[in-house]
């Protein structure tokens, strides 16, 4: 019974941890707007947490600069399994306009396995919610695999 409850709940309560890896702040604002009354992602159980230890989904924004690389990786490492990594905006996926800059170490997928990419500069809140929802399903899958 306990296992069933856990399996059922895993997809329903995704907590987010947001890492800014050198973002221009556009995506960051857009992520917060997802939680506002207009879009209210909390109805799906989304919640922003302050510590990676509490998180299920790590949302990375920004092109992953040299300065932030180690810190991003460490914070991602500190998230307990099962976890899901979502990149938000085009920067962490391709580098966007910062591509080729001496100070950019991205894309993020070079270092860790990224589960969901939400493209756009910046992505619309609908797209973000969609991407996060996708991530919750992956999360539930991962939980099942973890138990095998």
């Amino acid at each position, binding site marked *: 019974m*306990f296992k069933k409850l856990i399996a059922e709940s895993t997809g329903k309560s995704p907590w987010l941890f947001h890492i800014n890896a050198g973002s221009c702040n556009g995506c960051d604002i857009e992520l917060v707007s997802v939680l506002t009354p207009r879009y209210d992602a909390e109805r799906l159980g989304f919640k922003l947490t302050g*510590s*990676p*230890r509490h998180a299920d989904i790590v949302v990375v924004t920004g092109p992953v600069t040299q300065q*932030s690389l180690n*810190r991003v*990786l*460490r*914070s991602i*490492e*500190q998230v*307990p399994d099962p976890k899901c990594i979502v990149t938000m905006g085009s920067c962490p996926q391709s580098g966007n306009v910062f591509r080729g800059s001496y100070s950019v170490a991205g894309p993020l997928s070079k270092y860790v396995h990224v589960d969901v990419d939400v493209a756009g500069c910046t992505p619309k809140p609908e797209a973000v919610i969609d991407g996060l929802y996708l991530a919750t399903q992956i999360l539930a899958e991962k939980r099942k695999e973890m138990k095998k």
Partner: protein
Amino acid sequence: MKYIDLLNFLNPVHFPIIAIMLYFLGAFLIVLFGRNRIVRNCIAFLATGLTLTLLILLVKPILIDGGIIPYWMGNRVPAGGYAIGIALEVDALSLFFGLLVATAVFVAILYSFSYMSEDDNEPQYYTLFLMLAGGVLGMVFSGDLFNMFIMVEILTFAAVALTAFRNRVTGALEAAFKYLVVGCIGSTCILAGTILLYQQTHTLNLAQLAYVIPRVGGTNVTVAFALLFIGFCTKAFIVPFHPLAADAHGAAPAPVSVMISGVLTKSGIYGIIRLSFFLFQTMNLGTMQFWLVFLGSVSMFVCVTMALAQHDFKRLLAFHSISQIGYVLTAVGLATTLGASAGLYHAMNHTLFKGLLFLTAGAVLHETGTTDLGKLGGLSKKMPWTTALFLIGAASISGIPPFNGFASKWLIYQASYEKAVETGNIGFALVTICALVTSTLTLASFVKVTQSVFFGQLPKECENAKEVSWGMRLAMSILAILCLVTGLFPNAVQKLLTIPAGSALFNPNAYINGMWQSHLPETAAPAVQTVGVWNPTNWLILLMIALLSICIVAIASKYDAVRENKGEKVALKYSLFYGGEETEFSQVGGGDLFWGFKQNWRHYFSFMHNLHSGIVNDYSLWAVVALALAMVYALIVL
């Protein structure tokens, strides 16, 4: 000519004097044969252990059967109605304090064996230590005022010497000097008071004084009262004598701190009780109750706030010990049976938990070489036993159920609130509130210690710390177990120890009768009534059931899917989360905690900071001012 009947020694009548003599004999023998470590330890152990045994044997005749043991030294019984010989008189109150003394001394000696083993001049240490113990025991058993003074002198000088024992420690000599100066003012007050009383009543026997003084009265007697009162206040470190204790504790070795806080202050409290309940029998006066309760409440509140501002482990504990003594004085000052019994209960608990806390502080000092809260941290992984024992002590002093501090504080709240409702005086309700808030402040300052000494991060300097030797752990464990036991069975403790001792306060005629075989009418103290409900054993059983079942559920449901770091190197996953910055040592120091509280009280704290200048002249001045105030107050109201 009678030959000595050896069996006669086994008569309980002789136990008090044997107990005192054992300490002094031990001190003497250590001077003679103390060069060898084993001999020295054996003597100290036997002297303290035997004394404790003798006093425990006295529990039956005195505390349970309600007897009083008078003893005339050399059988010089009084002639012509005047007592010339030296007398001992042990009633329930004396024995109660005697038991505290003997327990604390025994544990402190056990602890000293390994704690002091690296010091030089060890024989001197034990000699002084036993002198101190003998002084306190002699004082609480003494049947005449002048011998009380002598014993006070012995214990003061032994304590001063022991404070400066580690004279290489910064501030040790200064602390001892301050203690010496203000302690001498106190002793002089006691002597002056004694002289005045003798001049007025022509006797020094306590029982006789108790009979004569209420019938004589007069200005001389009132002034003597004020002098004696202030004298004993300095021994108990009641506000305004509290800064001395802080300095002395900061410098003294831990077992000596146990003695100063657990035993010496108790001797002061004993003196105050003897003085106001027995000798002068003034406690039925509202003004006198107000005086004691006021002093007690001020002590408990001022010292707990002072403790919050400290950043040295032992100084912090020192202020707390005055704060707790404030509780005792407040409770006793209520002059109800419940109050007296609660106060004595708290006095006992204070000896136990404060002893434990000082010993853990000593253990930390022993391992790391410092007690500065800012320099310590993370010791819980290195010293798990000490941490556990410290937490027990901290929980006890902060009044966390089911430990003993809660049991007695809770009785004190009830006593003061009952008194408030009984007299309709809202001032006593404020005392209850003050006591409750002080208790939470105590918790706060111990949270500070817990965080900055035992938890948090381990600084590089402390990496070599390890668990202390089993001898020290044994001594601390004894106190910890006593803390738990006296907290779990408050009814038994009250019935066996504190109610007999507390009731004795309201029956001074029994004390006189016991000594003089007279037949003054004895009044039975009113029965103790508690309105509150608290059943610690049942609570603990419930808690254990709940905890066990939760643990079972937790384990059954994979709560045990716990990942921890394996190996020496810390993997990224197990490192601390630092909001992106590189990991570095960033302990939240003791001084920075409770900023939200201190910010609101900043004027109070800066006022207090300026007041505690650390200059002995100031402290002497305070003593003189206090004496003057006490005299004026006594002359006006008594």
